[in-house]
């Protein structure tokens, strides 16, 4: 037994010394599975961030229950800057729809990283070539056109905003994640879905149809696709992804992270991989991202209420 005690004591020495932040690898919690949209954005970002942080940034995929398992884990983590949280707009939605008790206020903002605009995408088996044709058809047969969406999440809210703006009624079918929705829309099992620019190749091959993009101006990647605004519909929607830390993380640590993040988003490799994923690099610092989150929280609450999903 004494041998064990001595060995344990020796082991204890290994991590005793304390130094300036960061002095060991930083864990970045991604609340979705590896290979998903969020994971694909934060993996290259982690590579860029560690270059400027001077320590390894390790992605920890903690999936499950619409991203709320990872959120709870991040909220409960030690607020020492060694656990960070990769977030997108779902955090507001899961809170207001009553799926989880984790709110954005349980965290401190660090920075936003990227923003992915939504594109209304139609199955090739449908006959509409444009949004007006779709709207006319939808008015003729309300509740018959199906939309694949992760219910209660961003891919549900985007078509819902369109639905409201155009004064039509759609039918929602549950398909979790972009990959599953693409499978279903290619097979013609759903008519519409929330797509993004990563699906450009399938559109060019005639496998899918982009009807309109939910940005202020047309995208340079797909100049032929009109914006909803041009068509007279007030639909602007993008999923913004950013970095948070547990609420009690010291200010000095947050400042270090903010500075490293500001440099990381400019890394050529990161910019290149975002472009490849149809995502815009969108950097906001601590204060600005905090403002953004606050505004988004209000908007999402109003949205949830209009859709009859508000449970808080």
């Amino acid at each position: 037994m004494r041998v064990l005690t001595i060995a344990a004591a020796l082991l204890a020495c290994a991590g005793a010394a304390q130094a300036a932040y960061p002095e060991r690898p930083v864990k970045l919690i991604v609340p979705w599975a590896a290979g998903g949209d969020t994971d694909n954005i934060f993996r290259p970002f982690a590579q860029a961030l560690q270059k400027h942080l001077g320590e390894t940034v390790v992605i920890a995929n903690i999936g499950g229950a619409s991203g709320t398992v990872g959120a709870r884990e991040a909220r409960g983590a030690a607020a020492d800057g060694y656990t960070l949280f990769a977030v997108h707009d779902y955090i507001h939605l899961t809170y207001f729809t009553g799926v989880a008790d984790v709110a954005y206020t349980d965290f401190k903002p660090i920075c936003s990283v990227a923003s992915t605009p939504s594109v209304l995408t139609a199955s090739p088996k449908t006959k509409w070539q444009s949004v007006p044709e779709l709207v006319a058809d939808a008015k003729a047969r309300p509740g018959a056109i199906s939309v694949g969406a992760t219910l209660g999440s961003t891919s549900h809210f985007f078509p819902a905003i369109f639905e409201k703006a155009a004064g039509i009624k759609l039918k929602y079918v549950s398909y979790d994640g972009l990959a599953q929705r693409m499978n279903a829309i290619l097979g013609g099992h759903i008519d519409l879905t929330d797509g993004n620019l990563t699906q450009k190749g399938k559109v060019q091959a005639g496998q899918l149809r982009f009807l309109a993009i939910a940005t202020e101006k047309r995208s340079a990647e797909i100049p032929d696709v009109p914006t909803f605004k041009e068509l007279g519909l007030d639909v602007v929607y993008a999923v913004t992804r950013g970095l948070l830390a547990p609420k009690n993380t010291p200010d000095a640590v947050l400042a270090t992270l903010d500075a490293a993040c500001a440099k990381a988003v400019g890394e050529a490799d990161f910019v290149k991989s975002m472009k490849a994923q149809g995502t815009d690099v969108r950097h906001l610092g601590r204060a600005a991202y905090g403002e953004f989150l606050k505004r988004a929280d209000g908007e999402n609450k109003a949205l949830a209420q209009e859709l009859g999903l508000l449970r808080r």
Partner: protein
Amino acid sequence: MFDLLAQGLGDFLQLKYLVPLLVGTLVGVVGGALPGITITMTVIMVLPFTFGLEPLQGLAAMVGVYVGGESGGLITATLIGIPGKPSSISTTFDGFPMSRKGEPGRAVWLGIWSSFFGGLLGGVFLIATTGWLAQIALQFGPWEFFALFMFALSMVAGLTEESLAKGLLAGAFGLIITTVGTDPIMSVPRFTLGTDFLAGGFPFLPVLIGVFAFAQIMTDIERARSLAVGDAGAGQIVSLAVSQMKVVGEILGRPFLLLWSTFVGILIGVLPAIGGSAASVMAYDQAKKLSRHPERFGTGTPEGIIASEASNNANVGGSLVTIMAFGIPGDAVTAVMLGAMTIHGIQSGPLFMSQESALAYGIFAAYLLAHPIMLAIMAIGARWFLRIVTVPKSMLIPVVLVLCVVGAYALNNTMASVWVLAIFGVVGYGLVKLGFPLAPLILGLILGDQIEVNLVRALMTDSNLWLFVTRPISALLLALAVGSVVFALWQRRRSRSVRTDEPDTDF
């Protein structure tokens, strides 16, 4: 087409592609062999390394992991009876008994050569039919998927040696496990008793590792007179050397079995979201049903090993078909590969083959070459891998348990997965003691969420329930499911007159 393939194969003469493929395959074999470390985990571990590489280098490494992993799993499955990863489950059914009967070399090499042939046949299929086969899978709506899963469950319930009711009950337990946690549609908490822990549900892999590892380890502990020795003595190391010609002859002498298992593997691989474990279980079941000696299955028959290993390697080829033609991952491993492609800015999808033909044929070449590399690694390393069974149980058990904990933890980076592992360790041991077969339980676990999601989707798309039987593919699959149950009942009624005693079947 052949010049493109030749060029792809030629590329791999360069060290810069050969080395990642070689390292990937080796890592895959080791990862696949270690219980509690799945191919998914191995490929996730490899992912960060691929960021700094060229796309084809990274993808070659991942293809290597995938092929190596599917083969590596058979080592632990046959030698210590713990599947190194889920798709080796059916390899344990016959591989382990054969190994215990004193023919570990034959069991291992039957598995390796079956993997080799199944994989290569899968490769031929992959190259020849990528576009065409995926068209079929695309026609599958929620109705067809639901019917397919019903068919799979009813078939696997027929695997059990005991009553059909018990097999189906085990399958139902698997389904029940997946209903715990938030529901897959609206994330409503179910059966959580208000706790955060249960809100996350029971993730599939910790449950699987727990059920299998503990059922095996605890049974070993309760039976063993002394844990100071391993399963194999030093003498058995020598017996790993078998006549390769004879083993190859044993496999090629059953061309129908090999081709059919390969076909099942490819088909399951092409269909999204089913994966290698279902492929090997289904191929095993098929082999048993079609065999002239179904009673020999589970006692160490070579057919069982061939069916399982040929199909799970062929499944890799099938999964690659789906990911390359449509950009739709068939399982978690290909999901990670797809992620790696996206990060490198490669558009997978219908245009992939024409726009990125060099890369596409590079992947084909990597897949074909991974098999001889795997064979070489096994030929050099299999002796060494066998040392796992000469290590005393008292040393092996703690290490395996630690690896199970590491595997469960690393899957989701939370202790919650480790609690799940422990809970289902106890549950698994209890179920084995009650004589429940584990294969239907596992299939229920794999398919549970998908069955529910597709049922709900079908109803959300169209409230007409008759569509399940009026859509032709769905109707055919449901008819096959019913037929499978009826056949199993008939078969049991026939054999009941012969066998009356209750066997002590722990596995």
